[in-house]
């Protein structure tokens, strides 16, 4: 297949997922938009959380979208990078904490 898996233009077609399932699509986008409204957390804070999660799920579309969203909101690059480090720390920590499991098994099986 000659078409690359990820293409930046595809982000703009996100709304097309409704074409094959209008009802579920509409529900999803309504929910999505509500999630990002000002609430107990500010829309700005939510944008930074979205950016961090985007890096965790490694979605190039979301990374593109929430970097641009941050720029529009006046979020600065050091704030964005700190959010990415939060994602990295949790991701790294999640790997490392399994080390306990490894240590338990190792110790139990060893003489």
């Amino acid at each position: 297949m000659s078409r690359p898996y990820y293409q930046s233009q595809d982000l703009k077609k996100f709304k097309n997922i409704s074409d094959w399932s209008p009802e579920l699509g509409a529900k999803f986008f309504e929910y999505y938009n509500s999630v990002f409204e000002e609430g107990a957390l500010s829309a700005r804070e939510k944008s930074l959380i979205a950016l961090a999660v985007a890096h965790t799920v490694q979605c190039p579309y979301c990374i593109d979208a929430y970097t641009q969203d941050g720029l529009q909101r006046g979020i600065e690059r050091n704030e964005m990078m700190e959010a990415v480090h939060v994602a990295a720390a949790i991701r790294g920590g999640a790997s490392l904490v399994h080390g306990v499991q490894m240590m338990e098994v190792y110790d139990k099986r060893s003489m």
Partner: protein
Amino acid sequence: MSSKSLRSRSHRLSSTQAQLEWLEKGIFKPGGLPHFATKVNGFQDTPLRPHSLDILQLNLGYMCNQVCAHCHVDAGPDRKEMMSETTLEKCLDLIRKTSIKTLDLTGGAPEMHPHFREFVSQAAQLGIQDLIVRSNLTILLANKKYVDLPEFFKTQNVHVISSLPFYKKDKTDRQRGSGVFLKSIEALKRLNAVGYGKSETNLKLDLVYNPSGAFLPGNQKSLELEFKKALKTDFDIDFNQLFTITNMPISRYLEFLIASENYEEYMESLVEAFNPSALDKVMCTNTLSVRWDGYMYDCDFNQMLDLKVDHTMQHIDDVIPEELVQRNICVSQHCYGCTAGSGSSCQGSVV
């Protein structure tokens, strides 16, 4: 980005023809993105026409003490164009003959015009409701002769509107030049000191935010809150409103878009964010823009593209105001900048 005007670099884009080619061809060629006029067609009677003449925007000249990277005027210290005394007088005449409510003085740095104070005082006596000076702030510190401008503005009850792209040094200096942020802060303090931006006075001080890069401005209210909080906490500065303005794909900003390979995506995002409800509030529906040499335009952006008013009278020497309103507005693809998202005008978002 260079710290010189396109004109002084003899850059290709200093020609309005070259800019219009970018706006008419490329991604807007047949089969590409829709032209603004076509897009408008479905929503509004076309062509667009002004409904009144409320705002007179005078570009007193292109000279400026700064050379901002995004400048749609291609202003700079090398630009010598200045409005003549005869043309200034014609502009006062036009105010006398019409019910213009707002006089908006811009440039370049309008304060650098040799007859600036005289003109402002004369205009103030004509009963203008809102006399705006678009001040770049650093001019107030540029030379001894400008130091008392805050006091002068106050005596004439001038409404000061100033650009401050961000409330932090880095981003501001990248867009407007090294050292601009701290000078702007000092100028804002001086304006505050005479009462500008203070809740207990009527002296209005508004700030203009425009994105420092190839993206659209965020929500005006949210950004205003951020600016107010940061400027108050960090520098004890007060101001009235923040206006968010979309960068127009013309002149030096167009140069940036092309050089950084952002042009196509930026134009796509403007087209995609087209908001028909901004259409009847775009500036050209109630504004007349006059160039330093007396030629008239639908707005300051059309002035920079030299798209003169579509009328037999194009010069202020010949103007018959009631006839001039009977015209079609000249549009091109830069107009998408006025209708993207919440819309954009010299007074910020419109919807």
